[in-house]
């Protein structure tokens, strides 16, 4: 078989790989088939990688190149595997952010290498125009988007790990710096694209410097963009950076002329865009508003009672246990506070006890319950909660009216009825879980502190609500013991 035939076979293998990606994603439409879907997608990856290795071998690969290839893969793959095996499910957002960073970084490096190689070897040596306008456009888009993703995701990851304060960090003049970087990066890009199109002429070394300037702007921009964004806005930021990585990979596909990269990048970009939009609308905020930052000032410590009016009814652990144990239908409303307190197993244990008494138990999951889209579901699945009990907001909201007890653990703003009724509330219009429509409500909460939006929650002074003041983990253990004793 000659080289051209092999080239065609490799192209066919790429098409097969891209198709397997799509089929794999399609199988993710149900928890029952999702694991198979991920494996289908992985097999597409293996086919594509094998095909590319066969392809490059045709051209003859030197020993040194094999060392670079295998050494880099072994190092990265080993580290990736180690992190994937050891990461705690609560730390998933950090890891996903880290993978966003390396994916975006790799895409940016591809374009950078392509540019430097062309600059050094073809433009200088042959006098052949090595660049054209379009190609330059894709190179620069890839370098900029990939670099912003790289540093932005690293900052997001560091914030989630607690290495950097989760609160918005506002540097004096930071906003102006961000705008300046944006303008500078775009100006350099336009100059380069014009040069690529032949409208202006520069020495290759100047072009290289310009690209490096754009790279520097993008790297700093990524930092100044994410630093001012608060920890609770991370679901949106991670989704957005995910979309960026996809776009960067698609741009890299245009640069190196590989259709499979274009398809894969487009799929990831679409996924990131969908998730970004979902997360932003679940918080009732525009993406621009979140990027401007400064809203999520963190857990307030002031009493939430001051302006809410009305009185709080405290409930003892025994009363709460009786209420739960003699209900017909219970909905558990977990928030991120549950995960912070590591109380997922406690909540599942309580649910098991109630189910054993013939009570219908389900979980109402708000889209932003967690630090990334769908995070709470993974945390509960890890605690052995069966997935049919994990219910989405729109699906479960009509059921609250028929619910005897809604048990709220570690959730605050997503249960705040002010979002429905109070036009002056900062969260007015945010979709919430209709907890207040249940026949009775039990809220497990450490104190009367406010949620992340720092606003009062009228749910707590609702006459139907009993407040059980306790740390989520200990509170649930006490409830389990009390239900067992009945």
């Amino acid at each position, binding site marked *: 078989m000659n080289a051209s035939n092999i080239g065609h076979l490799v192209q066919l293998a790429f098409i097969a790989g891209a198709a397997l990606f799509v089929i794999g994603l399609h199988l993710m439409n149900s928890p029952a088939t999702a694991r198979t879907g991920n494996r289908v997608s992985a097999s597409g990856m293996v086919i594509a990688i094998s095909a590319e290795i066969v392809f490059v071998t045709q051209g003859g690969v030197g020993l040194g190149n094999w060392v670079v290839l295998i050494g880099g893969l072994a190092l990265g*793959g080993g580290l*990736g595997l180690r992190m994937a095996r050891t990461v705690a499910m609560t730390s998933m957002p950090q890891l996903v952010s880290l993978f966003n960073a390396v994916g975006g970084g*790799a895409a940016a490096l591809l374009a950078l290498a392509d540019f430097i190689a062309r600059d050094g070897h073809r433009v200088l040596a042959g006098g052949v125009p090595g660049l054209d306008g*379009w190609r330059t456009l894709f190179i620069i888009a890839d370098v900029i988007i990939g670099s912003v993703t790289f540093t932005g995701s690293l900052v997001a990851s560091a914030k989630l790990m607690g290495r950097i304060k989760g609160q918005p960090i506002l540097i004096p003049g930071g906003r102006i710096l961000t705008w300046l970087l944006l303008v500078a990066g775009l100006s350099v890009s336009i100059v380069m694209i014009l040069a690529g199109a032949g409208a202006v002429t520069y020495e290759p070394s100047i072009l290289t410097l310009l690209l490096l300037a754009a790279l520097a702007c993008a790297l700093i921009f990524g930092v100044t963009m994410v630093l001012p964004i608060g920890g609770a806005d991370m679901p949106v930021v991670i989704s957005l950076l995910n979309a960026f990585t996809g776009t960067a990979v698609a741009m890299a596909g245009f640069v190196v002329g590989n259709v499979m990269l274009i398809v894969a990048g487009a799929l990831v970009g679409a996924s990131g865009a969908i998730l970004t939009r979902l997360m932003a609308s679940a918080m009732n905020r525009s993406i621009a508003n979140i990027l401007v930052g400064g809203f999520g000032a963190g857990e307030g410590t002031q009493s939430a009672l001051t302006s809410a009016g009305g009185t709080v009814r405290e409930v003892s652990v025994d009363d709460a246990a009786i209420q739960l144990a003699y209900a017909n239908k219970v909905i558990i409303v977990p928030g991120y506070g549950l995960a912070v307190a590591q109380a997922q197993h406690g909540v599942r244990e309580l649910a098991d006890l109630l189910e054993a008494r013939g009570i219908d138990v389900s979980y109402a999951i708000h889209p932003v319950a967690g630090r990334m*889209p769908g995070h709470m579901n993974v945390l509960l699945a890890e605690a052995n909660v069966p997935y049919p009990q994990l219910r989405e907001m729109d699906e479960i909201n009509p059921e609250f009216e028929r619910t005897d007890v809604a048990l709220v653990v570690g959730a605050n703003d997503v249960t705040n009825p002010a979002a429905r009724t109070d036009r002056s509330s900062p969260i007015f219009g945010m979709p919430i879980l209709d907890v207040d429509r249940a026949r009775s409500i039990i809220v497990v909460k450490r104190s009367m502190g406010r949620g992340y939006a720092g606003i009062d929650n009228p749910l707590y002074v609702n006459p139907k609500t009993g407040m059980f003041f306790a740390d989520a983990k200990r509170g649930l253990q006490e409830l389990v013991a009390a239900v067992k004793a009945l």
Partner: protein
Amino acid sequence: MTIDVLIENLTVFVLAILLGFEVISRVPATLHTPLMSGTNSIHGIVLVGAIGLAATADNPLAALIAFVTMAFAGANVVGGYWVTDRMLQMFKRRPVPSTDKPAR
């Protein structure tokens, strides 16, 4: 880049975005974290570009960039698929009744 190649690639790009929107909007919110981590592994496909780079690098700078790119993309692919699988195996219709100590 000839205009023909550009248009061909743009066609693929636009259709893939539309296909992505179709397929991904059917994924339930329950699976959004594994979805994101799964698509994360998919963008590890830059590994294919990195292999091309590593195989043709003929100077130390190119070799260095190729090495870092291989490491980045390799971590992305291996770690991404592994952790997605780890997450998805936890989603069970009826988990086996566990006797483990819940508190950890």
